[in-house]
């Protein structure tokens, strides 16, 4: 008997990837490349990092698009530390891996280790009590008017297609009507009130609360990024094993939106996908090579309000090729910066602001309650921390910054 004889069947794998591409644009880091779209267990959605209100712990959260963690991947928080913004001198990796029942095995560098079922809200604590781990399904804290954002992009792209000029720094000269249209579409969904595309989304979430003393060896400024890695050999489940060797990188994240919004958002899909794949796999030493991609996109955002040259950190007097260089370089170092000397965490990018002359005492980083996306787009479009919004102000879940495991139950 011959059961299947259909050449169209292979197309299913392309279509699985293609199907989700449209809503992917402007998700935080969700669904950013074909590789991770096809592999939801490898696809990091978001990363959060902030200090506890008693100043003793660093809280970390990473969620993935899937509802369960892979038994073949490593999930890693890299916590770099230093005394000055942009310069870190030490690093502490926090790694978890899982078996096929999603039983966790986690390490904080060489300082502590834990193995067990981490899915209860209390999580499990390391042998030396230096960290606590939760791993299980939680509400996805990210909120964004994805469809409205995509529609805004389409309006800008259409204007460019119709001949809107672009200045020497790649900033489009949008007329007032077009600019209004772009910003209006950003605030609406399908012409109506804005909706959160991720409302009701749940995701497998890895939450860690770790002693600051374990992760701040280089200094009080912490720079956090996350990654998923595919080991070349099967993980051994020897419980007292040393910190495992990291596998090949699959996905990475620092700040929200870097891959999805800054790496060729209007380029042909194949071009931007290739760039994002390379970005996800790049080692830290190679990150600055993406500053040029980011710089080009920064020019695009700068023009969305009809005014070129009013973006955050823009150098109006620089030659065009350097107008956005400072912000591009800052964003290419794609890490969430946390001032661990601070116990108050209310402002996205606070450490970056402090480093660029806006003194403050906020820890920065990213809590699950920041409207990071509105801050981000406001800075990129108009140079201020508000004013450009997507009409979605908060997530549908209520997340805590003080009560472990912080993210709302699904």
């Amino acid at each position, binding site marked *: *008997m*011959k*059961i*299947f*004889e*259909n*050449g*169209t*069947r*292979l*197309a*299913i*794998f*392309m*279509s*699985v990837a*293609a*199907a*989700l591409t*449209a*809503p992917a644009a402007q998700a935080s880091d969700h669904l950013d490349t074909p*590789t991770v779209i*096809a*592999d*939801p*267990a*490898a696809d990091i959605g978001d990363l959060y990092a902030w200090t506890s209100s008693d100043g003793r712990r660093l809280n970390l959260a990473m969620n993935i*698009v*899937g*509802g*369960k*963690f*892979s*038994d*073949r*991947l490593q999930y890693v928080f890299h916590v770099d530390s230093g005394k000055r913004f942009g310069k870190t001198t030490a690093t502490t990796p926090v790694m978890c891996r899982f078996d*096929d029942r*999603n039983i966790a095995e986690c390490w904080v560098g060489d300082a502590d280790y834990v193995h067990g079922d981490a899915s209860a809200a209390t999580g499990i604590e390391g042998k030396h009590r230096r960290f606590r781990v939760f791993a299980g399904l939680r509400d996805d804290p990210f909120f964004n008017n994805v469809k409205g954002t995509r529609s805004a992009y389409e309006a800008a792209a259409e204007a460019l297609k119709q001949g809107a000029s672009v200045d020497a720094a790649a900033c489009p000269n949008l007329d007032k009507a077009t600019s209004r249209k772009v910003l209006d579409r950003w605030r609406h969904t399908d012409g109506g009130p804005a909706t959160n595309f991720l409302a*009701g*989304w*749940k995701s497998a979430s890895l939450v860690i609360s770790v002693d600051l003393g374990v992760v701040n060896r280089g200094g009080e400024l912490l720079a956090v990024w996350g990654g998923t890695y*595919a*080991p*070349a*050999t*099967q993980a051994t489940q020897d419980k007292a094993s040393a910190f495992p060797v990291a*596998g*090949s*990188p*699959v996905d990475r994240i620092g700040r929200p939106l870097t891959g999805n919004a800054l790496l060729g958002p209007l380029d042909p*899909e*194949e071009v931007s996908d290739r760039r994002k794949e390379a970005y996800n*796999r790049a*080692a830290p030493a190679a990150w600055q090579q993406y500053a040029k991609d980011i710089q080009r996109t920064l020019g695009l955002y700068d023009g969305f309000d009809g005014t070129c040259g009013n973006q955050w950190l823009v150098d109006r007097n620089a030659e065009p090729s350097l107008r956005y260089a400072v912000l591009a370089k800052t964003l290419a170092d794609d890490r969430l910066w946390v001032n661990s000397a601070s116990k108050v965490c209310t402002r996205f990018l606070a450490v970056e602001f402090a480093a660029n002359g806006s003194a403050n005492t906020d820890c920065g980083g990213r809590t699950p309650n920041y409207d990071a996306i509105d801050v981000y787009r406001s800075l990129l479009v108009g140079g201020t921390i508000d004013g450009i919004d997507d009409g979605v102000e908060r997530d549908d879940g209520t997340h805590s910054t003080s009560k472990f495991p912080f993210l709302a139950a699904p």
Partner: protein
Amino acid sequence: MKQSARGIIFLGVLALVYSGSVGAGSVSRLPLTTAGTIAIANLDHQIAQLRDDAGVEALLLARSRFLGDYDALDRAVSLAERRVRTGGDLMRRARTRSAVHRFSEALDDLAAAEQVGVDTDAVAALRASILVATGHAEEAIPRLEADASAHPGFASLGSLATAYAAAGRIADADRLYAAALADLHTTSPFPHAWLYFVRGMMWTEQAGDPVRGEAFYLQALAHLPEFATASIHLAELEAARGDLPSAVTRLRRVVAASSEPVALALLGELRLRMGDRTNGLRDIAKARRRYASLLARHPLAFADHAAEFYLGPGADAQRAWRLARQNLANRETARAFGLAIDAARAAGRDRDACLLSASAQARSIDIESSACLHFVLP
């Protein structure tokens, strides 16, 4: 990815390929892909997240294809049919229509998608796959070769391999399937399982090498033990070499987890052969009801499988003949001709069988026709 790391993964994949190519032995090591149970849970999770939003159709089709879940197929078709506002919608409808073998309508959708500005590469890729499915692989091959050359990757290589296989170029197809597998840098088990499965099917059913085919089916199932169709094909081979208990055990697992009528029918046949008349007849009756239900909803998608059923345990040659003709009208593949000729003969229509043989030969399709010599053909 660092070159050294990429090299390690490449070697790992090659090791899997070669361990599967030496014979029908056991799988010596577990694959470096996510456990099937987790991957399926994540697929279901994504389906739940997307609710009825655009894009969920492809995930539902994947569920249907791997797990024999025809409720998922129904939902995919239903969603795609009621949402046609954009070029993307047209592409999604083309994919679901193609999945249920409504090839002509799918091609219409592709033409419409092209007119509203959908990326021509995406349209051409799906059009080429439909050409392959409808017996026109030779027409699709130049386009697929150009695509594989311009964008080498598992998807383009796998599509070209499928076209080569359909055109009878087994060695070329096998080389490309191996290359496609080597290009897979994902821990998702689905694409690995699929490529091993189609490679196994090619060796078993086109090249007549069931030993090699079985090894690839085993690899597919090592990656995704829940893969219903691969299990059924493997059970067929086990039954053919006399290992009925193993085949029955495998089919019982499929039947318990899916609504796949092919598994029910084969299980019924094997049980009858093993003397279990009561359960055998019950399974065949269930298969008959499943086919009736599926044919009512997706007549073209199940015409060929149902024709085979009625030629075999379903024991209704006239119905098999009607279904086989319907299938042949939809796609003139070698298999469709072969099935129609078998059905014609079973229904006592020797002259029709000979006409079909002649028709196949006129299309350069190699079909046995010696029994037709005593007929005067037009």
